[in-house]
């Protein structure tokens, strides 16, 4: 494996290269502004939002909107809006930090992120000068609230199958839109809807639709499982009259807008759920210390400690991935001249470079939060089932994250499909690496060159082996199914599962190596987190790879693969009872998630 030498890491290349710990960006590398932005966001959420969380959930008239206007005053709605249009135009790390701290506010976080993300970014990146001038200052300040309408009753994951139509009037002055859009977050109070429709029933395009345009209305509120405080409605377009200049982007290129905006949304979602997870862990720790059964705090029971440790490890790992990726994106965006007319295009291209990482973050972090809230309810026992305590709401609010911004199934498929596609195009050497590896593994008894050294020697070797397993399984699958591979979703998803574990293991290891594992005085807590996660992740990698291999091979071939797998899976198991107790003890001592 080679070490990265180019000025930036290519997306997905973590699978084939080794990264030096000094190269990755981590939360420990935040600068003073980042800390201040995080603090101001946190103060706002703690003082202005959390005390009203019940009223927000009851959709008290006007409340969410007034809070949006209030947060707009301190600039949090305009981080991604360029300075020319009254915004802050800050880096993605700042944007992620705000998403993380807002993330603990449940429903309101969804209101916030729909507005600042899918509601505003399409205009930032695809708007004409006039559109930007007209809408961005209003959206950045919170004077107007935005909403995004891609989904329809009949088309969700298959968004391009939308049925809503747009027809240009004979004089070319306006489009007439007809159709029903589904699931618009913020629809109840939005002033603007970024709406997708097919011109002449075929050319998928986007429009900026205003609330007051003739023929535009919304249906009653959906009754939802969670995030009850966010508004979700249908948008009804009944001969809606939209001025021709409100076409957003190019005719027939709506999918470019939809897909690009999703990339950003996905990794912001990752940051947001990490914020929610930290809050829930803190609540669980405090509760577990206070609740006594059998004459002792339940926090002293091994099974409760195990839960707390698992919750914290996954959250810490998720956070490591989120900010590593933010750093990658910021690095690539630094070279974009914000003043150039090509700025938007280049920015999107920069983000798209890491589309694989964005999907990884979306899937892993949303599943982490679901795990965290589920175990939190369990730690609270019966009280977790009661509305009197905060975890019941957290449990309900978490679930949506696996569904929107592309379901986790769609994102899982995307990860391996994108990897393979980039390899076919020659952008990533995955398939050549697979070929190479196949030769090496059959001829050599063990991987010889450059054994890792230092405190994480064995973990680094495990990760290197996991990468080989990812390469081996995807190479084997590509060879077996060729262009029919997309039909083998189960195999693709498992390849993605392995790839995700690799990114997760490596991100947390590099972070800790960079900051807490200087050879003279490694910090035991963080070293334990790495060792424990890598140990557990490898066990999962083994299950996934067995699943793949037994689906694609049989007989001697399968036995050969399994022999190789066994060799790559050789590592000394860790006593995770001890490490997890120690990690839980650290949380208990600190009284909160503070890693």
């Amino acid at each position: 494996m080679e070490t990265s030498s180019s000025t930036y890491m290519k997306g997905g290349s973590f699978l084939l290269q080794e990264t030096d710990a000094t190269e990755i960006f981590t939360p420990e590398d935040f600068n003073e502004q980042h800390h201040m932005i995080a603090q101001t966001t946190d103060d706002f959420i703690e003082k202005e939002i959390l005390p009203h969380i019940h009223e927000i959930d009851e959709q008290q008239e006007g409340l969410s909107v007034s809070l949006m206007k209030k947060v707009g005053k301190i600039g949090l709605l305009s981080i991604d809006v360029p300075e020319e249009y009254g915004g802050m135009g800050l880096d993605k790390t700042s944007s992620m930090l705000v998403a993380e701290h807002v993330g603990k506010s449940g429903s309101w976080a969804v209101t916030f992120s729909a507005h600042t993300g899918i509601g505003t970014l399409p205009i930032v990146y695809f708007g004409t000068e006039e559109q930007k001038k007209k809408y961005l200052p209003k959206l950045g300040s919170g004077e107007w609230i935005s909403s995004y309408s891609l989904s329809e009753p009949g088309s969700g994951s298959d968004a391009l199958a939308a049925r809503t139509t747009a027809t240009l009037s004979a004089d070319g002055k306006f489009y007439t839109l007809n159709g029903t859009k589904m699931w618009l977050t913020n629809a109840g109070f939005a002033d603007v809807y970024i709406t997708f429709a097919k011109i002449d029933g075929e050319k998928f395009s986007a429009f900026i639709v205003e609330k007051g345009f003739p023929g535009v209305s919304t249906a009653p509120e959906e009754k939802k499982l969670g995030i009850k405080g966010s508004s979700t409605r249908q948008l009804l377009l009944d001969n809606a009259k939209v001025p021709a200049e409100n076409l957003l982007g190019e005719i027939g290129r709506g999918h470019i807008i939809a897909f690009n905006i999703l990339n950003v949304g996905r990794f912001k979602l990752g940051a947001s759920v990490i914020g929610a997870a930290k809050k829930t862990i803190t609540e669980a720790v405090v509760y577990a210390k206070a609740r006594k059964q059998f004459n002792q705090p339940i926090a002293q029971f091994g099974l409760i400690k195990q839960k707390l440790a698992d919750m914290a490890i996954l959250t810490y790992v998720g956070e490591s991935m989120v900010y590593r990726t933010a750093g990658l994106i910021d690095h690539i965006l630094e070279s974009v001249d914000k003043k150039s007319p090509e700025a938007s295009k280049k920015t999107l291209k920069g983000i798209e470079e890491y589309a694989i990482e964005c999907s990884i973050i979306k899937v892993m972090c949303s599943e982490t939060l679901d795990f965290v809230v589920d175990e939190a309810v369990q730690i609270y026992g019966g009280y977790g089932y009661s509305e009197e305590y905060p975890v019941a709401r957290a449990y309900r609010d978490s679930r949506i994250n696996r569904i929107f911004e592309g379901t986790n199934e769609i994102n899982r498929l995307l990860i391996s499909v994108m990897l393979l596609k980039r390899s076919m195009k020659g952008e990533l050497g995955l398939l050549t690496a697979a070929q190479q590896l196949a030769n090496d593994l059959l001829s050599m008894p063990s991987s010889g060159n450059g054994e890792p050294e230092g405190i994480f020697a064995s973990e680094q070797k495990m990760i290197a082996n996991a990468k080989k397993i990812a390469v081996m399984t995807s190479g084997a699958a590509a060879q077996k199914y060729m262009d029919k591979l997309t039909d083998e979703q189960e195999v693709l998803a498992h390849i993605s599962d392995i790839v995700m574990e690799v990114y997760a293991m490596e991100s947390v290891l590099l972070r800790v190596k960079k900051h807490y594992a200087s050879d003279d005085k490694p910090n035991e807590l963080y070293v334990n987190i790495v060792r424990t996660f890598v140990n557990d992740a490898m066990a999962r990698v083994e299950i996934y790879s067995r699943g793949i291999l037994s689906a694609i091979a049989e007989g001697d071939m399968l036995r050969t693969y399994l022999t190789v797998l066994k060799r790559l899976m050789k590592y000394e198991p860790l006593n995770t009872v001890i490490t997890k107790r120690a990690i839980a003890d650290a949380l208990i001592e600190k009284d909160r998630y503070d890693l």
Partner: protein
Amino acid sequence: MKILVFVNHVPDTETKVKVGADGKLIDPTGVNFMLNPYDELAVEEALRTREKFTGEVVVASLGGDSNKETLRKSLAMGCDKAVLLKDASVRDSFAVAGALADYAKEYGAEIIFFGKQSIDYDGAQVGGLVAEMLGLPSVSVVVKLEIKDGNIVAEREIEGGHEIVHTKLPAVIIAQKGLNDPRYPSLKGIMDAKRKPIEEKTIAAVESRVEVVEMRKPAAKAQGKIIGTDASAAAELVRLLHEEAKVI
């Protein structure tokens, strides 16, 4: 108007503090620090005063380099200029006040804002001491402030009610909760703060008059005891309060 506000950098109320190895100071490792909440009220009032009368707000803090974080936050809230009175030694309130008074005089402040107390040592002395040293009038625990034509009408919180006092500029105003609702540093404020100067000044050493000889945590509270859950427990409760706790 030349407006001066003094701020302190104190342990975050959420962090758990430990007594340090010398038994006299807290152990700062792993402790987050923040702008003292009462001083935040003082900063806000200083900014509002500037918004009314124009002029500048200088924020100053005495301490080590880490105090810059709190100064930076004050700048992000909108103060114009920051001054770090650099001193790493341990000082009592009197010695602190001496250094602050020197700076206030040098700057020529027309109004000086303080918070009621620092939530670290809770001395609640510095504002009053500075006023005395400068020979200025001071009003403490202020919950409402009006300034007009150099006259000050301030409302103070006193036991069971409020007191309204009149005085004149220049003066020292010491803020209590309720005076205002401090603003959040805006993103613009945060980015602007990066470009605002923090001036460092060395200050003369002075001897403290009060020395901390020992610092310790209060003893853990004993477990409560449930004697019974109905009226029949009353007699036993009375007996215990009388004989064991000896409070009745």
